[in-house]
C-alpha cells in the first residue's frame, strides 16, 4: 500500500471519502484523490454529505435540555482549515481583502494597532534589558509574535476575558494592564500582582495548557448566566500535546462555550520543533475532532489576526460555540532569557522569518495609506519611551516586599498553627536584622 493511501485511510477512519475544500474554488474532492494529485471532482459530492448528515441526525441522542440546545452536527466542510493560511496583508504590505473575513477597521483603528505594536515591541525589549541587568529573574519575549497577539486582542471587547500563557505581552498591551504589575511576576516580587477580575486578564500561567480548562469553565459559566461575553485563551504549539488542551477543547465544544482557542504556532516548544508535537496535517485540523472550526492564519499579519478572531469571536458571542485559530508565526528570541536557541534553531530558518516581520509589514501598509506621518510615529515613539522609562523606574531596585506576607493569602481563613510559623519567621528576621545592625 502506498504511503499516501495509508495516511488517507487512517485519517478518514473509514473507507468513506473525506471531503476537503479545494482552494481553487472547485467542487470538493476526496483526500485520497487529492493526495494522488488527480483533482477529479466527485460526480455528486452533495449526495454523500447529505447522506452523512441524515445518518448523524438519526443518531442524535435524547439529552437534557442544556445539551440539546448546543447539540448540532456541524458540516465537516465548515470545520477544516483552508489550504493556505488566511492572509490579508501580503509580506509586501499589500492589502488583499478576503470576503470571508471582512475588515471593519477605520484609519483610527489602524493607528491604534500601530500604536499597540510599537508599544509591545518596546516593552518586550525593556523586559529583556531588565533581565540582563538582573532586575527580572527570567523573561519570555514575544518578539516576532506581536502581529498575532495585537490583532487578536484588538478583536475583543473590554468585557471579554483573556487567559494568557506567559508570553502575551502584546495582548496585555491591548488590554492595557500595567506592565509593572505583570513584570513583578518574573521579578519575583509576587506571583501575580494585578486583579484578574478587574482586568478580565487571568494570571500569567506557567504550566502549559492548564489554563485552557479554566477558560472553558469561565466561558461555560458565562453562557449559563446568559452573559454575552467571549473568552479567549492563548497557548503555543507545544501546548497541544498536553492533556488539558484536549480536555479544554472537548469541554468547550460539548457545552458550546463561547471560547476562542488562539494557538500561536511559533515553530518551537522550547527546543523541540512543532512536528515533534503533533502529526495532524496542521494544528487547525484538530478543530474538527472537537466539532469546532479550525482556522489557520498568517500570524505575522496583524489584520488577518484581527479579522479572523473578530469573526469567530462574534460567532461565539452569538451562540456559535468555540473555535480554534492557529496563527503561524515565529519566536524570534529565545524561549526565555535562560535559553540558548543557537543549539537547536537553524540560522537560515531564523533569517527567513526575520524578513516576515509583522511590524514592518504593517508599517508598509500604513505608509501606502499615508497614515504613517511623523506626528503618529513620533507620538507613539514618545509614548513608548515614557512607558518603558516609567516601568524601568518603578521596577529598578523595587523593594522585595514583606517576607511575612507569605502567610497572608494562602487562606481566606488561615489555620491557627500559621501563627506559630509566622512568629518563627518574624523572630528569624529580627535576629537577622540585629546581626546586620552589628556588622554596620
Amino acid at each position, binding site marked *: 500500500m502506498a504511503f499516501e493511501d495509508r495516511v488517507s485511510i487512517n485519517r478518514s477512519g473509514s473507507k468513506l471519502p473525506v471531503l476537503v475544500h479545494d482552494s481553487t474554488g472547485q467542487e470538493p474532492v476526496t483526500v485520497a484523490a487529492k493526495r494522488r494529485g488527480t483533482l477529479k471532482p466527485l460526480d455528486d459530492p452533495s449526495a454523500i454529505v447529505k447522506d452523512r448528515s441524515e445518518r448523524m441526525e438519526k443518531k442524535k441522542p435524547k439529552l*437534557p435540555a442544556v*445539551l440539546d440546545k448546543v447539540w448540532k452536527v456541524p458540516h465537516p466542510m465548515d470545520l477544516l482549515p483552508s489550504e493556505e493560511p488566511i492572509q490579508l496583508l501580503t509580506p509586501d504590505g499589500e492589502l488583499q481583502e478576503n470576503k470571508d473575513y471582512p475588515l471593519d477597521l477605520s484609519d483610527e483603528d489602524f493607528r491604534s494597532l500601530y500604536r499597540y505594536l510599537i508599544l509591545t515591541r518596546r516593552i518586550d525589549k525593556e523586559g529583556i534589558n531588565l533581565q540582563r541587568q538582573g532586575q527580572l529573574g527570567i523573561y519570555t519575549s514575544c518578539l516576532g509574535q506581536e502581529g498575532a497577539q495585537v490583532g487578536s486582542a484588538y478583536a475583543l471587547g473590554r468585557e471579554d476575558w483573556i487567559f494568557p500563557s506567559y508570553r502575551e505581552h502584546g495582548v496585555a498591551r491591548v488590554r492595557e494592564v500595567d506592565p509593572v504589575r505583570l513584570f513583578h511576576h518574573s521579578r519575583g516580587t509576587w506571583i501575580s500582582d494585578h486583579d*484578574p*477580575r*478587574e482586568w478580565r486578564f*487571568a494570571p500569567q500561567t506557567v504550566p502549559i495548557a492548564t489554563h485552557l480548562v479554566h477558560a472553558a469553565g469561565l466561558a461555560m459559566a458565562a453562557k449559563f448566566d446568559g452573559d454575552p461575553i467571549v473568552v479567549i485563551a492563548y497557548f503555543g504549539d507545544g501546548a497541544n500535546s498536553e492533556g*488539558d488542551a484536549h480536555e479544554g477543547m472537548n469541554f468547550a465544544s460539548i457545552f458550546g462555550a463561547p471560547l476562542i482557542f488562539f494557538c500561536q504556532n511559533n515553530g518551537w516548544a522550547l527546543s523541540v520543533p512543532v512536528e515533534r508535537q503533533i502529526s495532524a496535517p496542521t494544528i487547525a485540523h484538530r478543530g474538527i475532532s472537537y466539532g469546532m472550526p479550525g482556522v489557520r492564519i498568517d500570524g505575522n499579519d496583524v489584520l488577518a489576526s484581527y479579522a479572523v478572531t473578530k469573526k469567530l469571536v462574534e460567532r461565539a458571542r452569538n451562540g456559535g460555540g468555540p473555535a480554534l485559530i492557529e496563527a503561524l508565526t515565529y519566536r524570534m528570541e529565545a524561549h526565555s532569557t535562560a535559553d540558548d536557541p543557537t543549539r537547536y534553531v537553524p540560522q537560515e530558518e531564523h533569517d527567513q522569518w526575520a524578513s516576515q516581520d509583522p511590524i514592518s509589514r504593517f508599517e508598509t501598509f500604513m505608509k501606502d495609506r499615508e497614515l504613517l506621518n511623523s506626528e503618529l510615529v513620533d507620538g507613539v515613539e514618545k509614548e513608548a519611551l515614557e512607558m518603558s522609562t516609567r516601568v524601568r523606574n518603578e521596577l529598578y531596585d523595587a523593594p522585595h516586599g514583606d517576607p511575612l506576607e507569605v502567610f497572608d493569602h494562602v487562606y481566606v481563613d488561615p489555620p491557627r498553627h500559621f501563627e506559630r510559623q509566622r512568629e518563627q519567621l518574624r523572630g528569624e528576621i529580627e535576629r537577622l536584622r540585629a546581626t546586620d545592625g552589628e556588622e554596620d
Partner: protein
Amino acid sequence: MPTFTMAEALNRALRDEMESDDRVVVFGEDVGVLGGVFRVTDGLQSKFGPERCFDTPLAESAIIGAAIGFALYDYRPVPEMQFDAFAYPAFEQIVSHMAKYHNRTRGAIRLPITVRVPYGGGIGSVELHCESPETYWVHTAGLKVVTPGTTEDAYRLLRQAIRSDDPVVFLEPKRRYWMREELEIPVSDHLPMDRALVRREGSDVTLLAYGPMVKTALEAAQVGLDMGWDIEVVDLRSLNPLDEDTILGSIQKTGRCVVVHEASMTLGMGAEISARITELAFYHLEAPVLRATGFDTPYPPAKLEDYWLPDVDRILDFVERASAY
C-alpha cells in the same frame, strides 16, 4: 427523630445549599441524570435544572479546571471526583491551581470550591476504588480537608464546606454511605468546620480517628471496656487544619494515644499528629504515639482487604501496647 443514611444526608446538604444559594452548581461524571454512582446527587438535576447540576465528559482535570473557571465567574462549584483514585488526573489542577490561586493573586481571587471525593476501602471493590489519599491534599497549602464520621456531620460539614471561601477537599467515607443514623434538620451550626469532637469520653487511652474509622474506633472502645480499658475517641473531622486544642486536651487527660486511619502508615495523618503531639505535649505523654493504620503496600485485592484494614482487633492491639508503657 428522622433517620438518614450518610448518602442521603449528603444529598440533603447539597439540596439545601443549592436552594439557599443559587450560585452553587454541582457537576461531575454521572452526577446528573443518574444521580451519582452512590446517588449522592440524586434528584438535583430534576429539581434545579441541567445548568445547576450536570454531567461532564470523563475528564477529571477539566472538571476541576472548569470549577476554577466557574469560581472565577463568581459561582460556588461543588465538583465530584467519582472515586478517590480518579482524582489523580486532576492532581495538577487541585494542587497547582485550586490550592494556589488565592495566594497567587495576592488575595484578589477566592475559589470557594468544594471537591467531593468518595474515599477509603471496605466495600469489596476493584483496584483504585478504595484509596485513602488524604495526605496528598493535607500536604498541600491552600486546601482545607474535612471528612465526616457520622451522618449528622456529613450534613453539617458539607454545608459548611460549600460556604467556605477557601477551597475544600471533602472526603466522603464510602463504606459509611449506607450507615443509617438519626438526623434532625436543621442541625446546630455552632460547631465550626475545623473542630475535632470527643465522641466518647475515656481516661486511659485516646483514639484519634476520622472518616470511616470513627465508627470502628467507637466499636473498639466498646469492646475495650470489657478488657478493662476506658478509651476516649476523638473524631478529627478536619484534617487540615488540625484542631490541636481538642487533640492536646485529650492527651493531657490520658497520656496515651493511638492514631487510627485506613491510609498507609508512612507519612499518613498519624505521622503529622504524632509529631505535633510530641512537640506540643511531650511531658504529658506516658507512651509513644502509636499508629493503627493500613500497611505501606498498595491497597489489596477485595478478598484480602479485611486483613489489611485496621479493625477492632488491630486497634485494641495498639491500645494494649500503648497501655504497657
